[in-house]
């Protein structure tokens, strides 16, 4: 059937502001590809999109079991969104296990599309169903569309000379075609994608295209669906956009950084989930002056990257928590040698192998403190998939300008999630190049010119970098303590103390932008009583939750920390303006503890480590409880737990003059407080 006929719109599509769709199937069913394509189609249509892939650690967990279910959730909207949504409105279940693993989260009244071909006695048994859910009434609360997706797909590709098993594997494209039709999406981009992806396998290529089209036509020609839906484009600022995954955004940010520094990019990496994709992306970009090296282990990966930095490239290494642990000693070396280096940690559930494919924010303290000796390093966190680009550029800027290793924290949710990204003009990217030393910068006792590798820039405290090949500037650096200026080995006690303080001062003095607060009800001190502050990927859920709370008529402020080392200079003064500071984190309070240490301000924590991002509704509920707790406090209601009183604490601080008078002086409990229990989930 010609493509043109496919693109005809059915009349009377029901308009939705947003919808959450989850594709779920066996880990071999191609759900990640299906979801990714659906997201790309929606993005190309102009929707705002946020995605949440979720898959098991095993490449092929036992087929048909709940443990082997892989899913991909998408939130598409006609307005600005920041999360992949909480409960799906639509669930596509390719087998009984996928239904079983996901149906509990489906919104009541939601749509289920399932593949009847998989609902066999054996299939039900593997999924752990004693009774067929299609017949026992357990799905009555949903709109169920039981369709033989596999059967229709196999029939659609019958002419393509595929083995029966391969024919059946096109069922995901049939499903994608069907759901695309249901949501009034064009499939041309996906057809083009399939042509490219399977260019070397013409039969497979043709079969997948046929199955995709057949699914679309099936939707159009049957009357299985009462409604067709449409999500209108979201109003985005003018520009060129791309559907961008977090790992790819970080990779591109690193490439752009090296380009803007006028240096080759050199990546030393060892494969590790969920960071390997950055290695894969960069390995393909040879023509953009990217050099990648797959090392024999995590230590060699950072070693090679440090060697690359010493040799005049922008050295980068990418890893996840266990790899960070192995790199710790080399990080200390990079600190004392004062070489530029970017270390990307795509966090996953820990400790140890933990939950390798799931998200968590539990490596913050490792990033802040996980080295021997006084080894300060800047720490920056990515807040969303598209933000990976800017965050990576910022990490590289600091690494180069201050000659320091920089840790860039991402996480599995950001890494695999995707959203529209406005492609920057190359001209608008900052120039971050540095001048390499080419001439001696000092004289010895006899007045001869010499190179002093540890003579510092008076403003940034950065040391001069002379790369091998530069005549007259030969010098040795290493892990032993350096004498100030000359860099010679020094065991002098005062010099050691001086160098430790100097390295710390250099990091403390890095220019980072001030903390900004988002509060429509007013600036700090005159708006909301509650500030929700986060770092990393909780930016999205916190932002959505604040919007939801405000829509219900309450006041709440949001702030986000991109720079965690050093912290914005105005942090303490901003935090002190609020009665309560709430810190939701996917760990047990690591940022909260750091804030306490750095500002002497106690916060209220909300902490979950379930391997999944927060739900908007969940955080909105927590925020609401905290706000209401304050109101009850103020009215003197009995039986309420007091939340931490920031004003009282500040009064006890030595810098009390800077503190704002307590708004609720009656409550003086200053203990760190955990909203997790109150949230009751």
């Amino acid at each position, binding site marked *: 059937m010609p493509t043109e006929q496919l693109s005809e719109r059915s009349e009377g599509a029901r308009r939705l502001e947003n919808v959450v769709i989850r594709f779920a199937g066996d880990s071999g069913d191609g759900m990640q590809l299906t979801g990714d394509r659906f997201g790309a189609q929606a993005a190309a249509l102009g929707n705002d999109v946020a995605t949440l892939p979720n898959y098991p650690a095993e490449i092929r967990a036992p087929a048909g079991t709940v443990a082997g279910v892989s899913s991909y959730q998408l939130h598409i909207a006609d307005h600005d969104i920041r999360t992949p949504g909480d409960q799906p409105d639509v669930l596509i279940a390719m087998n009984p296990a996928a239904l079983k693993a996901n149906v509990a989260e489906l919104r009541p009244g939601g749509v289920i599309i399932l593949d009847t071909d998989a609902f066999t006695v054996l299939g039900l048994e593997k999924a752990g169903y004693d009774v067929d859910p299609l017949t026992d009434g357990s799905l009555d609360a949903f709109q169920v569309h039981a369709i033989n997706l596999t059967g229709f797909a196999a029939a659609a590709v019958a002419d393509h000379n595929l083995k029966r098993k391969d024919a059946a594997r096109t069922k995901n494209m049939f499903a994608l075609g069907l759901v695309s039709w249901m949501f009034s999406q064009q499939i041309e981009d996906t057809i083009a994608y399939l042509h490219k992806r399977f260019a070397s396998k013409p039969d497979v290529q043709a079969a997948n295209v046929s199955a995709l089209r057949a699914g679309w036509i099936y939707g159009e020609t049957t009357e299985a669906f009462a409604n067709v839906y449409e999500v209108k484009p979201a109003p985005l600022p003018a520009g060129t956009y791309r559907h961008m995954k977090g790992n790819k955004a970080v990779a*591109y940010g690193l490439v752009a950084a090296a380009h803007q520094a006028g240096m080759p990019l050199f990546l030393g990496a060892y494969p590790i989930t969920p960071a390997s994709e950055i290695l894969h992306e960069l390995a393909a970009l040879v023509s953009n002056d990217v050099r990648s090296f797959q090392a024999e282990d995590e230590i060699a990966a950072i070693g090679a990257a440090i060697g690359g930095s010493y040799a005049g490239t922008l050295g980068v290494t990418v890893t996840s928590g266990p790899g960070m642990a192995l790199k710790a000693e080399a990080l200390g070396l990079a600190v004392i040698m004062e070489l530029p280096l970017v270390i990307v940690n795509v966090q996953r559930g820990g400790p140890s192998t933990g939950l390798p494919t799931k998200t968590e924010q539990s490596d913050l303290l490792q990033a802040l403190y996980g080295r021997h000796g006084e080894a300060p390093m800047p720490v920056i966190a990515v807040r969303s998939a598209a933000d990976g680009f800017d965050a990576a550029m910022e990490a590289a800027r600091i690494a180069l300008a201050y000659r320091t290793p920089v840790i860039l924290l991402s996480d599995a949710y950001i890494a695999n999630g995707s959203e529209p990204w406005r492609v920057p003009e190359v001209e608008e990217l900052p120039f971050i190049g540095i001048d390499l030393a080419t001439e*001696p910068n000092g004289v010895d006792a006899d007045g001869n010119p010499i190179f002093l590798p540890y003579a510092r820039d008076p403003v940034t405290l950065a040391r001069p970098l002379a790369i091998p090949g530069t005549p007259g500037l030969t010098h040795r650096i290493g892990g032993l303590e350096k004498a100030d200026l000359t860099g010679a080995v020094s065991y002098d006690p005062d010099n050691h103390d001086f160098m430790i303080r100097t390295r710390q001062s250099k990091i403390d003095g890095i220019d980072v932008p001030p903390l900004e607060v988002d509060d429509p009800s007013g600036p700090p001190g005159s708006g909301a009583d509650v500030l929700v502050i986060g770092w990393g990927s909780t930016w999205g859920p916190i932002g959505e939750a604040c919007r939801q709370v405000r829509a219900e008529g309450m006041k709440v402020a949001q702030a986000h920390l991109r720079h965690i080392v050093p912290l914005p200079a105005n942090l303490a003064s901003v935090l002190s303006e609020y009665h309560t500071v709430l810190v939701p984190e996917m760990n047990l309070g690591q940022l909260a503890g750091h804030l306490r240490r750095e500002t002497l301000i106690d916060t209220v924590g909300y902490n979950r480590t379930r391997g999944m991002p927060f739900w908007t509704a969940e955080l909105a509920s927590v925020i609401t409880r905290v706000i209401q707790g304050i109101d009850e406090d103020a009215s003197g209601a009995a039986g309420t737990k007091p939340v931490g009183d920031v004003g009282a604490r500040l009064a006890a601080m030595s810098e009390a003059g800077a503190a704002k008078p307590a708004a609720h002086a009656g409550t003086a409990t200053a203990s760190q407080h955990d909203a997790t229990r109150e949230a009751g989930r």
Partner: protein
Amino acid sequence: MSTVNGKAEEPVDGASGRRAPTVADFTTGQEVRWCPGCGDHAILSTMRGLLPALGVAPENTVVVSGIGCSSRLPYYLDTYGIHSIHGRAPSFATGISINRPDLSVWVVTGDGDALAIGGNHLIHALRRNVNLKILLLNNHIYGLTKGQASPTSKVDTIGPSSPFGSLDNPFNPIALALGAGATFVARTIDSDRRHLTATLTAAAAHKGAALVEIRQGCPTFSAIPRQPSRAAGQTSPEEPDNPAAPEHGPIRLSPGLPIVFGAKEQWGVVRDPSTGELGIGHGGDSRVVVHDPGTQNSTYAYGLARLAETSLAEPPIGVYRSVSQPSFDQLYQERLATARPDGRGDLRSLLTGSDSWVVAG
């Protein structure tokens, strides 16, 4: 040429317009802090003499080391250098070498650094044939940490951590390097300046990974077996006419010459024609092997490396293997060149991609 880093100006080389480098050019002002009598002094002195002769300017030479007595060496050579962390020198050097094929990159390491904590990096640098000159200063003991048994200490070595004698079998660095696929493997000794110089010169000329084991003792913490090692002890009666007797001294391997040794060259390395195995025979035997380090198959070199463990008091010194294979930096640069046949990629087109869309303002 200005005078820098405290060096006096010297005559300029007519051809290059720059004066030829001298020993002084490769000498730093740092005080050398090895124990008196340590072979490291001789190795440093050899390096300072050797590097100017190689014709590579100090600024194009990088020396990377790990941790241990031997790893202090870069501080005393006025080149670029990194005194890195324990065992990891090959990884830093690899990052330098593949990005900068214009540089002469040396790794200085020891038996603990290279074979214990850094064993993984050593074998991978060798298998990749990274263009590194690796000097493995093998004194058979941990000196800097005060005398513990190392991976090359003989069985039953007594030290503070093995008061009743060590239990583990030592590595044979030559055999290990050959097993990792090293393209240049040599052994020399710190006490023979000429042999040391010749061996390091050959290593420097090799394109690819060159491993040179420099055997030495430690004047402070000698690796003293509680009793003669099992291998030597059980098979070496101290008769002067036995090849395992120390009196016969080291066997020198010279390309193209038969491998004979002993005061009267009465002994020789012979190959069993039926099994191909190497053994010890009489110097005049027609089966005496003519040394050929260029043999592609490393079985011969491996047999030679293992020979000393069973039949000799001292292992042969010289170049065991020297074969030509593309070096990693060369392959890497070729890959970079062929992977971008259309020249440099454009950042704008990379960022925009083929799947972007435009939102009108």
